[in-house]
């Protein structure tokens, strides 16, 4: 990839240094958070203990014992997994229809789906609470899962659509000639060939569902509350609990960041709707 005879010695040296600096700079807050999670609350705010301190697991222990942490974590997992699953069940047929059997309206439908994401959640908050309480669904898993799914459904469909569109047209036509019906097309051709794309979509949707903070906080109190609620509840303003805060945050964020590391390529592909390869 390098263009021959163009890089001066200085550039050769400066570029990696600069790149590493920027990389570390961006990663630093996360690093800092993880580091702080191993400090006691008291140590966390002492400048002297910036980098050198006695690490302790006390925050993590506190967290898992006192806060009923596991319930929050479990709810996050249940919500994210169910919502992802639901989005696949609904999204795969929809994306299939749009990719394999497009009509004139298909492009508009896709754009419209995308535009539903621009709806400011705050605008419909109160009706949602009203409905939720009225239907007796407030603070239930069903409600939270449904809402979190619907928020991310457009994204799921878009991503699946771009992956499905990549299946060469003549394989589909060969299938038609061979007498495959709709169900067969999905089962025998689509799913095996787009499997990578389906997995990628699932992973990314899982990440977004897990990270969802608005509705999961406002539509729940105890039963269905997720980790986002735990964190929002923990934002004690004047920083006395940095250690504890970091531990909770690290635990909430850690697995997702690692997952994200594995998903980079799919992220680009899916989120740019395939336009950037």
């Amino acid at each position, binding site marked *: 990839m390098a263009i021959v005879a163009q890089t001066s010695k200085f550039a050769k040296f400066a570029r990696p240094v600069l790149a590493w600096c920027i990389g570390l700079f961006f990663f630093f807050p996360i690093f800092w958070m993880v580091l702080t999670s191993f400090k006691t609350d008291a140590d966390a705010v002492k400048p002297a203990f910036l980098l050198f301190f006695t690490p302790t697991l006390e925050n993590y222990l506190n967290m898992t014992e006192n806060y009923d942490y596991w319930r929050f974590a479990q709810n996050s997992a249940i919500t994210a997994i169910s919502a992802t699953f639901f989005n696949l069940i609904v999204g795969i047929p929809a994306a299939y229809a749009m990719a394999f059997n497009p009509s004139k309206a298909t492009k508009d439908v896709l754009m419209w789906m995308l535009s539903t994401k621009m709806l400011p959640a705050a605008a419909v908050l109160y009706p949602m609470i009203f409905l939720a309480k009225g239907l007796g669904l407030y603070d239930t898993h069903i409600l939270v899962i449904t809402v979190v799914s619907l928020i991310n459904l457009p994204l799921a469909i878009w991503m699946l659509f771009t992956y499905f569109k990549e299946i*060469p047209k*003549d*394989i589909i*036509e*060969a*299938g*038609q*000639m*061979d*007498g*495959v*019906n709709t169900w*067969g097309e999905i089962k*025998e*051709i689509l799913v*095996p*060939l787009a499997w990578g794309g389906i997995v990628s979509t699932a992973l990314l949707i899982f990440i977004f569902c897990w990270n969802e903070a608005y509705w999961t906080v406002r539509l729940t109190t105890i039963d269905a509350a997720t980790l986002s609620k735990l964190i929002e509840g923990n934002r004690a303003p004047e920083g006395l609990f940095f250690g504890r805060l970091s531990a909770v945050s690290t635990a909430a964020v850690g697995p997702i960041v690692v997952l994200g590391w594995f998903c980079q390529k799919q992220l680009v592909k899916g989120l740019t709707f395939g336009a950037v390869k």
Partner: protein
Amino acid sequence: MGRIVLDKVTKSFGETQVIPPLNLTIEEGEFAVFVGPSGCGKSTLLRMIAGLEDLTSGELHIDGADMTAVSPSKRGLAMVFQSYALYPHMSVRKNIGFPLRMEGMSKAEIDEKVNAAAKSLNLLNYLDRKPAALSGGQRQRVAIGRAIVRNPKAFLFDEPLSNLDAALRVGMRLEISEMHKRMQNTMIYVTHDQVEAMTMADKIVVLQGGCIEQVGSPLELYKTPKNLFVAGFIGSPKMNFSQGEEASRRGAATIGIRPEHIDVLSEAGIWHGTVGVAEHLGSDTFLHVHDTGLADSITIRAPGDVNFKYGDKISLSPREDVIHKFDAQGQRIE
């Protein structure tokens, strides 16, 4: 079995009509080749017969039954795609057996037919491989196998040899021709290569701009092309055309003479010119001759041991009996 009739068939994409009303009959057991330049509609026509494209108007009959609105798999046809379109995640065995599985055949029967097809195509050793592990020629055979196994009324080939290298192409051409002689099924074959057309076809359909220019056997098209287009399309190197004095002397607006019909060895030819580029293939020599007064450049096919060089003066003797005459509209004059 396998008589296909196209009756006043048209095709439009949106506002643009790409195929004006067209009539064509393909007889049982015929090997018909659709040939023409890019964009002439040959692939579209094939896909309409297959059912992958709708007919904008007109009717399609297969063995007397109206198949205009029938879905592709129910027409009893099989297609071999240019890119083979094999299912990459399935083994050769599964690829070939796929249409049978869709028909609901029993496993035993499927195995039997798949093995038979594989045997006739020399694929027995590759049955468990995936397409990615096969060479181009092998993939081609799998695609053919998948078509054979359905016992179709007719085979449709969409430029099947374009993706193969030159050497392989010649071999596969022979195999397909042999297959036809053996199986006697109707075959419709689309290509832009007129050599394939000439060597394989019982009947050639020459298309341009969605219209049929001429239908006939290879030799018919070679000997009696109906118009300038067909005359220039069939035969390689191209026929030489000349307007002007030589043409009007013979009572035509344009005359045409094939490179192989001009003799260069006699000194007493009626035309004269200067040799430009001389291409020596060993088996033949192609001479490009200028300053003849007929056209900018005349191409001549001469025996391989002829050794004219650039700048040589040359005398040309055309065979009068095979000079083609065309009128001002480009139509053949007898």
